């Protein structure tokens, strides 16, 4: 009997093993003549540290008290541009039964910052003709004196602006415009040499790992549903055992947590209409397998072509994830404007609704700016997007930020009305559909049409009267 049970258990375990998809972990060491004692070649600690720097920065950006605060400013800058030791993890921290392993950024990786990896191109969608890195710096400084990240005079929510823009200007940009671009060339970080002397990974292995690290997905994503990955990012207790891949009773912020665009991909996919998270993750895993299979030899042209196809899948879907977020928050902003309009007409208290409007607008703006930090210049699409959204939300007196003066103060001028601005939000959604083919379409301004269309039924039939 016991033997029977044992045999059954082995059979079930084998079956489970067969069904389990590959984790982004434990790829073997393929570096020729490697002398060290590493038993695998996967490493993306620097990227995970930057995720934690950004989530912490977001949290800090919401700590201002509406007055000049040099100490907070210095702290914010330490997370954005500093490299010094001693920075604690401000977010994500343990929450109920969801225990987080690291409490210091240095436990993940040392001497990392965001500023050094931020998009160097000009940001047309933000006033002041600044580079990506300068814009983030500017926002970080402003956040220090804002009221919980919020500036009522401009409608900016800096915590949201910084977080959403940096996800693009650092992570997305680094991946699609660097790691999965020129670093896939034959003579750049070749596969027949270690990344650096003495390291257990080859040039191409590490390039691929660093790209993966920026995506922000847990290593076992292919064995999780989009909803589960979403719950991990939200630190729901129910998701703890799913996240704790190595069963050590803690979730490692290195490879067991969900961040940034992987989280947004999961949030989008859990609606059931899209599959961005697993498409991107599968391409990362398949690409890594291809590099591993080369066994420390330089990649052939054929292999690199295949690898570039995976890179293209990643870049295309990643861009769509950001476009879906732009679509979603244009819809939220639209609804907020609708609510504000009603409140204004009924002489109601607009404070709470305006705060919500500022939050959603800032998320929209952050994602819209992020979308423009990819490999390709979006050209006319970017111009349209920036003009539709403007430099700030349309404010209660029908004004909008037009620029920044020499002292770094915002300059406002009269603008279109809030009602007209609603049309801009609709057009932003339309632009995302036309240019990026977004499919999940959360908060679709025209969603009511879909339900009604279903009710009326299809007219495709050959019925005479």
């Amino acid at each position, binding site marked *: 009997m016991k033997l029977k049970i044992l045999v059954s258990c082995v059979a079930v375990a084998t079956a489970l093993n067969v069904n389990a998809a590959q984790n982004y972990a434990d790829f073997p060491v393929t570096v020729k003549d490697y002398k060290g004692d590493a038993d695998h070649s996967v490493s993306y600690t620097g990227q995970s540290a930057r995720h934690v720097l950004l989530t912490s920065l977001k949290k800090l950006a919401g700590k201002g008290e509406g007055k000049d605060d040099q100490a907070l400013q210095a702290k914010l800058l330490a997370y954005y541009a500093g490299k010094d030791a001693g920075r604690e993890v401000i977010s994500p921290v343990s929450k109920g039964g969801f225990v987080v392993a690291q409490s210091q950024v240095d436990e993940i990786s040392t001497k990392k910052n965001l500023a050094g990896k931020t998009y160097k191109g000009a940001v047309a969608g933000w006033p002041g003709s600044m580079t990506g890195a300068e814009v983030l710096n500017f926002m970080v400084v402003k956040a220090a004196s804002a009221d919980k990240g919020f500036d009522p005079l401009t409608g900016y929510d800096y915590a949201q602006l910084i977080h959403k823009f940096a996800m693009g200007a650092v992570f997305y940009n680094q991946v699609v415009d660097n790691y999965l671009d020129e670093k896939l060339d034959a003579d750049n970080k070749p596969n027949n040499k270690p990344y650096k002397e003495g390291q257990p990974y080859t040039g191409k292995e590490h390039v691929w790992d660093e790209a993966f690290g920026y995506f922000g997905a847990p290593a076992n994503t292919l064995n999780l549903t989009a909803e589960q990955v979403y719950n991990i990012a939200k630190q729901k207790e129910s998701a703890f055992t799913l996240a704790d891949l190595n069963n050590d009773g803690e979730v490692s912020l290195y490879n067991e947590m969900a961040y940034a665009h992987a989280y947004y991909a999961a949030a989008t996919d859990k609606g059931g209409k899209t599959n961005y998270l697993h498409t991107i993750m599968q391409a990362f895993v398949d690409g890594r397998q291809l590099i591993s299979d080369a066994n420390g030899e330089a990649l052939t042209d054929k292999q690199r072509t295949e690898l570039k196809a995976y890179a293209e899948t990643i870049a295309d879907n990643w861009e769509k994830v950001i476009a879906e977020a732009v679509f979603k928050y244009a819809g939220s902003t639209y609804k907020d404007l609708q609510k504000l309009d009603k409140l204004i007409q009924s002489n109601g208290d607009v404070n709470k609704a305006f705060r919500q409007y500022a939050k959603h607008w800032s998320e929209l703006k952050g994602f819209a700016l992020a979308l423009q930090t990819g490999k390709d210049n979006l050209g006319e699409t970017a111009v349209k997007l920036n003009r539709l959204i403007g430099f700030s939300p349309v404010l209660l007196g029908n004004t909008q930020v037009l620029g920044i003066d020499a002292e770094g103060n915002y300059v406002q001028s009269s603008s279109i009305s809030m009602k007209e601005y609603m049309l801009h939000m609709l057009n932003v959604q339309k632009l995302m559909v036309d240019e990026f083919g977004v499919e999940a379409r959360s908060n679709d301004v*025209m969603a009511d049409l879909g339900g009604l269309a279903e009710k009326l039924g299809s007219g*495709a039939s*050959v*019925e005479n*009267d």
Partner: protein
Amino acid sequence: MFESLVISYVQDLWIALTDPRKRVFWGYLLISLLIAICWIKWVSPDRGVRVKTHLFNRKVWWSASARADYAIFLLNRLAFLFIAPVLLTQLVVAQWLFESLYQWIGHRPILGESWSDMQVMICFTLFYFLLDDFFRFYLHKLLHEVPWLWAFHKVHHSARTLTPITVFRAHPVEGVLFSLRTALVQGIAMGVFVFFFGGRVDLVTVLGASIFAFMFNVTGSNLRHSHIALRYGKALEKWLISPAQHQIHHSTNPIHFDKNYGVVLALWDRLFGSLVISQPGQDIEFGLRREVTYREQNLLYIYMQPFIESFNIFLSKVRKREKSIAKN
């Protein structure tokens, strides 16, 4: 691939008979049958006839014409499995209109805020019904009056016997036009109403069908294509098209040609001067003309002839144009 095609085909046929949004839903057929029985037994001028032989006459239900109807029904359904996915949908029209209204007006005035949801629903349902009924009337009129369209619509009028399945006797080209009409009507109604009234817009339904479509169908819509000359009486037939009036539309008598295009309302025919009121004891022959023509119920002929005819119409127009240019 083949298997999924068969499944969708069978599902499609099943839906045609079981969805109350469809004309030949079994419930409507049953009600039409009951109405027909009552009519023959108690109202019709020739109420002496045996109900069974009058209703289930093999000469009607298994005539060459009826057999062609059945085949056309099955073939068209199959064709539409491939055609339907590429047709314009009501959602595309609605979205375009919604966006266009926004661009034209510049903002979105929300109307009827003091109205109850039910009032908004009734308005929408009524608007949709009127728009749909008018578009059906008008496209039908065009199908008769534009020569190349008539070439295709003749397929429907070549029926010699009428059964409820004759409603499906149409050339696929006509089917495409009907689908576009529906997309346009639904798209306009949805686009306009959702734009002005927001998410409160809804359809008043019975068993999932619009209340007007339901009423039309439970009052014997299936008898329009039948040999039961159900009349509504002169007063009502000025407002609603009765089955007998639609049968006049199928008449081989030239005085009945191009009359009674309407579906539910007689109003449109009255406005355009094409309304004919039915007469008691009317005895009508159905078809394109009295003489039976060779191959008129042949499927290949039914499907191909409209293309040949419309091509000839096109060709003769080109020649006429060339002649007039040469003259000048």
